[in-house]
């Protein structure tokens, strides 16, 4: 992935920049320029409002990955999850600093800024969000 291709998304990957439809108030991540919920799409075109996710959410589904995606070989086994964010959108991301056995649906998590992967030995290092359990979440379970 070229530097520019990753760099242009940093606002979203670093800061969880999202968008909100002024018609139906739904929040989207990544941000969309048109609302898929509103039947008259043109009403939302050019009117979507920028917003930011809080980073709080809960585990909706999870898997422990043993055969890594390209570039993630050094991280296996890693937990990948669908995380339902407090504002509504669902995100795909890793859950870190946790024993895979402790992951359950419904656990509260918070986005954390991490190194995602490197572009080969001499390429750019990509950063972005992963998720960590809220303090004591696993213990409470």
């Amino acid at each position, binding site marked *: 992935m070229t530097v520019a291709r990753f760099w242009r998304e940093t606002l979203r990957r670093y800061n969880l920049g999202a968008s909100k439809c002024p018609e139906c108030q739904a929040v989207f991540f990544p941000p969309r320029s048109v609302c898929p919920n509103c039947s008259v799409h043109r009403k939302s075109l050019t009117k979507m409002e920028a917003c930011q996710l809080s980073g709080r959410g809960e585990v909706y*589904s999870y898997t422990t990955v*043993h*055969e890594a995606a390209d570039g993630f070989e050094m*991280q296996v086994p890693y937990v*990948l*999850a*669908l995380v339902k964010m407090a504002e509504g959108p669902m995100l*795909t991301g890793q859950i870190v600093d946790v024993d895979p056995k402790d992951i359950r*649906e419904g656990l509260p998590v918070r986005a954390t800024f991490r190194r995602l992967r490197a572009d080969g030995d001499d390429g750019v290092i990509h950063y*972005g969000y992963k998720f960590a359990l809220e303090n004591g979440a696993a213990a409470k379970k």
Partner: protein
Amino acid sequence: MREVAILGIGQTQFGELWDRSFREIGIEAGFKALESSKLSSKDLSALYIGNMASGAFIDQEHVGPLVLDYSGLAGHHFPSVRVEAGEASGAMALAQAYLAVASGEHDFVVVGGAEKMTDVPDDRGAAIASSTMDQEWERVFGASMASLWALAARRHMIDHGTKREDFARISVLDHENGSKNPLAHFRNKISLDAVLAANPVASPLGMLDCAPFSDGAAALVLGPLESARKYTDTPIRIAASQIATDFVALMHRKDVTTVESTVVAARRAYQRAKIEPSKIHLAEIHDAYSIGGLMALEDLGFYRKGTAGKALSDGEIGNGARLTINSSGGLKAQGQPFGAVGIAQVVEIVRQLRGEAGPRQVSGQEVGLTHNLGGTGATSIVHVLTRVN
């Protein structure tokens, strides 16, 4: 719009074909299809090719004219159209060819599907296979295709009480059928215990829940139904050819335990073919990952959501049972050359409806269905095929 029939079928061996090139397998499937009808290449006026990723797999784009050229047809100058819809490229090519014949623009066309996947190392192959998911918002965060299906599987277990063994049975069924198909990539039977004990890929999915990377090609000859008897004794009618789409990323779907594009494509196909799913007992379903096969059984309307697992464990599904799925061996055992899958599914249903399926023949079927999926379900294509009496 006029009715369209399948007049010929062809398929190569599926598997790791080290000695065969992309163009060779494409040509073999096409000529076999032509030979099985009474048409010759001079009767054709267009070629359609389903192919997902020849540029990534063999650095070759522009495969439409390439296959036409090496089929000896360059001098005819007729259109050759390469169609891409991820792993649903094959069925998408068929859908386009169907429209071309139905509209009257073309009379006789060949539609093929081909993929050459083993000319790259395995890890590169997996990366190319991941290209049908959202690269910026799934792949970048560590998602593999298997992991996305695993996320759907886990939620299916949470919401519907589905058990790990339920979808493992899809792989067992596929290998049972593949053992009777000489063209299948894998011809060994596997036990339920073997699927459960296989190396983990993305929990709960293991190695034997995942279809292989295969080389292979398949092809069909299409023509108007009204003149079909001149070219074959056993034309098969395309009663419905329906495409539906959805959000590309799994996380954006309304419900990750339902492939809504399949629900919609199937519903439209049943309306068009004027048939209820309860009247269909023969289907080739897209099960690149075993859980996807289980979900397809529900999303196609054969079983209510959450009940396909029980039907599988009760033995309602299997060759000659209430519902026969993937008599070819499916994606898991027959193999998964991306662009060829959707065409090979149709080839198998045609064999079954003609009574040419050999040791895996299911008797008395008048109608069959195929289901080809792109990505984790951003594209679903359903075809309904019937005998012509």
